[in-house]
């Protein structure tokens, strides 16, 4: 219990500070969460869900936490420019774990709440009580529990019934500062019935210091609501990201999730989606481009609780050098979830003998009238295609790059936001050409 004690003591010693700086709704969930964390501890080698993802060394670092809520000297929009500018998004920032209010507030439709989760939970406690920690609170994940115990701020978006936000919203999560830090970022996204939103969350880092982001995002998608949700990680080898995303979706709603790991250090993404209303549909997709000693682990779980829903998963990895990838995709079909249609596909390209991929596709079906399938394949670049391209005068390097590109092309093509699709296209090209340092915002990627 060595590593855990540090965090538990920190919690106890700063209990009052946490109370003082946070909304009562957040504070009310802390004791139960730290209790769960104390009971379970960080996942060890015997923990099946984290068997391939050993974070030990990274948890022992003496990270600083911004318990007294100091703000960074410059507004992030002044020092940081994301590489996805052509999106003409409405842009918001969380630096470390501090939400930065927009200097000139943007016009949003009536009733939309957007901003610091801490402020909104304080100001709209009655409305938010039904949502905050409702999903994360059911999880036994130690990192989610630690987040609930320690989180002080993050991003919140509430879209009332029937409201559609046309323009994509973009949240930039940044690390910035002189010390090694841990940020317990907490996000909450609520789409009431019939609401519609496109949200993109980008992770960046502007510091070379080792940083750990332990993030929890809870997402509620009401009846007939539509969500497009994009996550893009463009950090660096010193960054650790642990993310727990919980999505509940209701009748006839539609959820599109796309998660891309373009550059990182160690990443663990847990995505848990529950289909709680009939005729809901979901599409989950993403890819990880890994090299050197990078590590990415996606655990995706889709639960069909009611009949007549459809879900699709498509995840791909490209691994070079000594990188490691893990994909665990699970589809769970409850006994009464008849007429479920569920599809899961995972494909991985291992380009070096040092690279390693673990794939764990799983189907657990308790209903008898369903259409479910899954497939997973790990292999190398097609040598005959490589030779064909070289025989036309393309260099081996260029050919390999184009083949890697082609490997993830279907996921890029599946991105519904066209400007983002084009942007990702360029970024992936840069990544393969090892020109990632051209990232205008951070000079260290």
């Amino acid at each position, binding site marked *: 219990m060595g590593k855990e004690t540090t965090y538990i003591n920190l919690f106890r010693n700063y209990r009052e500070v946490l109370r003082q700086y946070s909304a009562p709704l957040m504070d009310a969930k802390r004791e139960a969460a730290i209790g769960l964390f104390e009971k379970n501890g960080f996942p060890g080698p015997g923990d099946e869900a984290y068997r391939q993802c050993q974070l030990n060394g990274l948890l022992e670092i003496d990270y600083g936490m911004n318990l007294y809520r100091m703000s960074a000297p410059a507004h992030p929009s002044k020092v940081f420019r994301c590489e996805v500018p052509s999106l003409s998004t409405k842009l918001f920032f969380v630096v470390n774990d501090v939400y930065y209010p927009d200097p000139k507030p943007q016009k949003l439709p009536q009733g939309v709440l957007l901003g610091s989760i801490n402020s909104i939970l304080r100001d709209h406690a009655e409305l938010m009580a039904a949502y905050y920690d409702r999903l994360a609170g059911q999880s036994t994940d130690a990192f989610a529990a630690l987040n609930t115990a320690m989180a002080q701020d993050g991003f919140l978006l509430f879209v009332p019934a029937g409201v559609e936000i046309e323009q994509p919203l973009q949240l930039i999560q940044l690390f910035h500062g002189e010390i090694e830090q841990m940020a317990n970022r907490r996000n909450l996204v609520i789409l009431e019935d019939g609401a519609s939103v496109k949200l993109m969350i980008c992770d960046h880092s502007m510091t070379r210091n080792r940083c750990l982001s332990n993030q929890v995002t809870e997402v509620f998608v009401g009846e007939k609501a539509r969500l497009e949700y994009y996550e893009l990680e463009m950090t660096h080898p010193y960054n650790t990201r642990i993310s727990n995303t919980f999505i509940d979706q209701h009748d006839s709603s539609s959820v599109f999730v796309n998660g891309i790991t373009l550059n990182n250090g160690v990443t663990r993404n847990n995505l848990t989606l529950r289909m709680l209303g009939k005729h809901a549909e979901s599409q989950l997709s993403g890819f990880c481009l890994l090299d050197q000693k990078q590590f990415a682990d996606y655990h995706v779980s889709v639960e069909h609780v009611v009949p007549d829903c459809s879900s699709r998963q498509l995840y791909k990895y490209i691994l070079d050098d000594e990188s490691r990838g893990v994909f665990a995709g699970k589809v769970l079909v409850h006994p009464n979830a008849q007429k479920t249609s569920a599809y899961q596909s995972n494909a991985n390209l291992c380009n070096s003998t040092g690279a390693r991929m673990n794939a764990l596709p799983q189907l657990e079906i308790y209903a008898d009238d369903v259409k479910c399938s899954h497939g997973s394949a790990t292999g190398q670049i097609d040598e005959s295609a490589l030779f064909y391209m070289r025989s036309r005068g*393309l260099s081996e390097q260029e050919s390999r790059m184009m083949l890697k590109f082609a490997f993830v092309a279907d996921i890029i093509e599946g991105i519904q936001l066209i400007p983002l699709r084009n942007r990702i296209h360029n970024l992936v090209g840069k990544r393969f050409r090892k020109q990632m340092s051209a990232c205008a915002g951070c000079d260290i990627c």
Partner: protein
Amino acid sequence: MLLEIKNLHASIGEKEILKGLNLSVKEGEIHAIMGPNGSGKSTLSAVLSGNPAFTVTEGTVRFKGMDLLSMPPEDRSREGLFLSFQYPVEIPGVSMVNFMRTAVNEHRKYRNQEAMNASDFLKLMREKKALVELDNTLTSRSVNEGFSGGEKKRNEIFQMAMLDPILSILDETDSGLDIDALRIVAQGVNKIQTPQKSCIVITHYQRLLDYIVPDKVHVLFDGRIVKSGDFQLAKDLEKQGYDWVKQELKD
């Protein structure tokens, strides 16, 4: 001499396929290589284009005076050697346009020329597509993906036209083509051909040679060229099969 092959031995795995092959091709010549199944025709084209699946164990190949065998496949292409594949490879996710633009520009870079701009490139594509009556929609699709047999072969000749090689090797370009497609492909090849350019046509049948008339015809058997002649040899083979050649060899 454009191409000079001397005593070429090549194997795949442990199996020796080419067993001392000699062949010389001058500028402007069209050579046909015929021979029964398994005689080594495709191995010859693979070795000349630099397919890493084959190992050359002995012999030399000089192309434009250079040691061809020491060059990587891409440099062979950039120096003007082109192989029309017997089985063109499907490459899902790589668009024909992107593939060809990259290829053309790599060739230009090799010759210290600037990359071609988009409008010139599209103009060139249009022009060359017309040569083989290649459907417009095919070039916007992934390389060979879902193409019919005939479309794949036309696409090979289209690529040949785009890259403008000095020596083309057509490896059974006629196989799997119906009469009309054969005519279109062969006419495409003839339109590309100039008095300076050479061509090696590998085929089982004479019918392609009715369109692309060879200066020389060779019979490849058991890894060696065992008989050479003019167009008449192709006609004789078509009429009588390979048995008489085999018989001659025994005698």
